Structure formats: C-alpha cells, structure tokens
C-alpha cells in the first residue's frame, strides 16, 4: 500500500516536472513573450534615464555633485590610469631598445638578465 502510494507520488512528480518544463520552455522561447518583456525592460530603462536626469538637475540646482558627475570623474580617472599604463609601456620599450642596441652589437650571448626584456611587441 505504502509502496503504491510512493510510486503514485513519484509518477505525479515526474508528470508535474515534465508538464511544467514543457510549458515554461515554450514560454521563455516564445518570441512574442520575449518581445513584450523587452518592451517592458525598455520602458523601465527609459524611466531610469528620465529619473536620473531629474535628479541631476535637482542636485545641480543645489550646487551639489550628482551620481552622474561622480561617475564622470571616475571614468576620467580610469582614462588617466590607462594613459599612464600606455606611457609606462612606451618608456619601457624605449629603455629596452636602448639597452638591446649595444648588446646586439656585442657578442651573440647577451647577458642573461637582459634576455627576458629584449622580446616585445
């Protein structure tokens, strides 16, 4: 009796899983559903943009920096850091080029510590 009940429960669970799986699979791959969901996301994002703009204006009226201003400063700092990395690489290349010139002119067996720094692009 108990085994029969357990089997029935198992069967019921398997049927439920298959039914739910099929239905949900159909839903999340349905182009119309995806399209409508995207419209809803678009409306939310537009709302966020409007809300952010209003906040920016209010903060500007109070002579206070807004989130947008802070993000802009952070992005400027990122740009400066990127530029510094580029300049450091250029400087290293310049030093390498200067160091490798006399080494190349000398014997083929260069100093081992300089070897790793000669190859670059």
């Amino acid at each position, binding site marked *: 009796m108990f085994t029969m009940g357990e089997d029935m429960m198992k069967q019921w669970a398997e049927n439920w899983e298959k039914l739910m799986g099929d239905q949900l699979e159909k839903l999340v791959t349905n182009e119309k559903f995806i399209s409508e969901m995207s419209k809803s996301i678009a409306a939310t994002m537009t709302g966020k943009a409007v809300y952010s703009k209003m906040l920016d204006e209010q903060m500007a009226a109070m002579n206070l920096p807004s989130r947008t201003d802070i993000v802009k400063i952070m992005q400027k700092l990122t740009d400066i850091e990127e530029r510094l990395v580029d300049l450091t690489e250029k400087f290293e290349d310049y030093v390498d080029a200067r160091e490798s010139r006399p080494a190349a002119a000398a014997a083929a067996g260069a100093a081992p510590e300089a070897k790793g720094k000669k190859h670059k*692009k």
Partner: protein
Amino acid sequence: MIANMDTIAQQLDAISEHYLRQTAGELDTYPRGVTPREEVWRAGNVSLLRFESPEGVEGQPILIVPSLINRWYVLDITEEVSFIREFAQKRPVYLIDWGYPGAEVGHLPLSHYYHRSIRRAVRFMCREHGCDKVDMLGYCIGGTMAYAFSCLEPDMVDHLVLLTAPIDFKDSGIFGTYADHFPTEEFKQSMDFMPGWLLAFSFNFVQPMGTWQKTKMFKDKFESKGFMKLYNAMERWIADPVSYPGKAYYHMLTELYKENLLSQGKLTTAEGLLVDPAARRSKALILNAGKDHIAPLCTTQLPQSDKAPVKQVTIPSGHIGITTGRNSKDASKSALEFIMN
C-alpha cells in the same frame, strides 16, 4: 527602478552572505580558485595572475582569457577539477582576471578588453619569459575575445584553444533571440553597466527547470563528500556575479549578437583597426560542448575567410559542464595535448 532593484539585490546579497557566515559558514570558506597564484600586473580592475607550477616547468607560457560575464575560477574550481592546475603542471600559466567592473569602466569599448588588455598581458608574459608569442585559451566570451586578438595580433599567438567560444553569431540560439529583442539603445542611455545579478537571473531564466533539477540532484547525491565539495564550490561561484561594463555590453550585443560583424570580417576596434579573420595565423582548436545552450555548436565555427589550421573536438557536455563536469578531464586533456604538440 533598475538602480533601486540593484540596490535591493545588493542588500539581499549582503544579508544572505551574512546569514551564510552566521549559520553554515562553510560556503564562505570556499576559496575563489584553488591553485596558488600571485598577481603580477594590474591596471584598474584588470589584473594578470600567475599560477604556481612545479619546479622545472618552463616553455612557452599559456594565457587564459576567461569570460567577462562571470568569475574566472570556474576553471580552477576544486583541486580535483581544474583546467588551470593541469596546465600549470606542464607550462607556466597566466590568467587575466577581469575583476569586478563597475560604473568607472562603463565607457570603455569592448575592444579595450579584447585588444588593449590582452596585448598588455601578452607583452608582460613575453618580457618575463623572453619569448615573442604565447599560447592562449579563451573560455566563452573570453574565447571570442582571444579569437579577435589573434586576428589583430597574429604574431603574438602560437596555439589558440577556443573553449565553447561563440564566433559566428548567426544562429546563436536562445541568447541570440533575447539579444535581438534587447532594448540596446535604451540600455546605452540609462546604464553604466549591466548588473551582475540581472545577468545571473537571465541565465536562470532561460533554463526555468534548472533549479528544480539541481535540487533533485542534490537530494540524490548529498551524502557523497566528493559531490558536496564540487556542489558547494559551484554554489560559491554562482553566488559571485559580476557586472558587465556598459559600453562593452552594448558592443557585444550590437556588433556581435545582432550584426555578427566578427564572423563577416567587419568588426573594428575603437581605434579603427579591422579584426580580420583572414589575417590570423595561429593554430586553433575548437573545443566545444555538444549540449551547449549558451554557445551552440554552429556558433563555435570559424569564418570561411579564416585559413589558419583548425582542429575540432566536441565534448558531450554543457557550457559549464565542459569545465567542471565528468567530461572536463577529457576537455582539459585535449586542450593540453593540442598546446604541447
């Protein structure tokens, strides 16, 4: 509203983290990656990690380019299941850690990541090892970026392993359909980044029975210590989402998913350089997964114009399973054999 939802999600995340620390605590002790490593270079969020190899291991270094969508340590999840650990036994291994990008890098284009960042990493490795090219493995979108890099800098890459990397986005499956409908222009106007929690939600959303199936598997196997170790490590990884930089996300959706520019040889960097598949010279291995719903088999194929030597190995697993599942050893073995020969 999305910003508010993001804040709520972050607070919920903090509460759940606190709860986990207070009660079970165990998940939090799981490390983010198991192979010992050191950070050898950093610029902003991006850092280059070097993994420890046994003494005497040398040769052309391998650079691993992980996905920008999630954390890298899925490739180094436990001592028993780790691509990185296996590679590090044979060659010096480096990995680009994309970190946790936020609004401060929201203005950087996708090419910043697939060209500038990878080039800096390769440059560092070449200087360290006295070589002029490296071997490379790219996973998921990291593979797409590694491929784009090998087209831009053909002299810098020797062997290229494309691990479930979408290259041809013409029939990119369910994610392609979502990308086609995604309001990219509204996103561009309103967001500095695509929040990690929303990305994680979308991955769950397209597999609606995933959590149910995972729970069933947990019920059947929770008494196995080996299973629980991998399960907890995976849960730690899943609960560690990363946000995608805004402009780079916009470029990924428009230039790759919607317009399929990479495969057509029309993709250009922010500096105007053409990413030309015909220019690529490195030997490539397409290592794809037969049950992959994120990068279906047809998306992993290289463009017709790419005439460099290519091999293909298909592993019977899913997109994540290829790195952590029961066939992951076959995948890492295939990759290593290809690189070593």
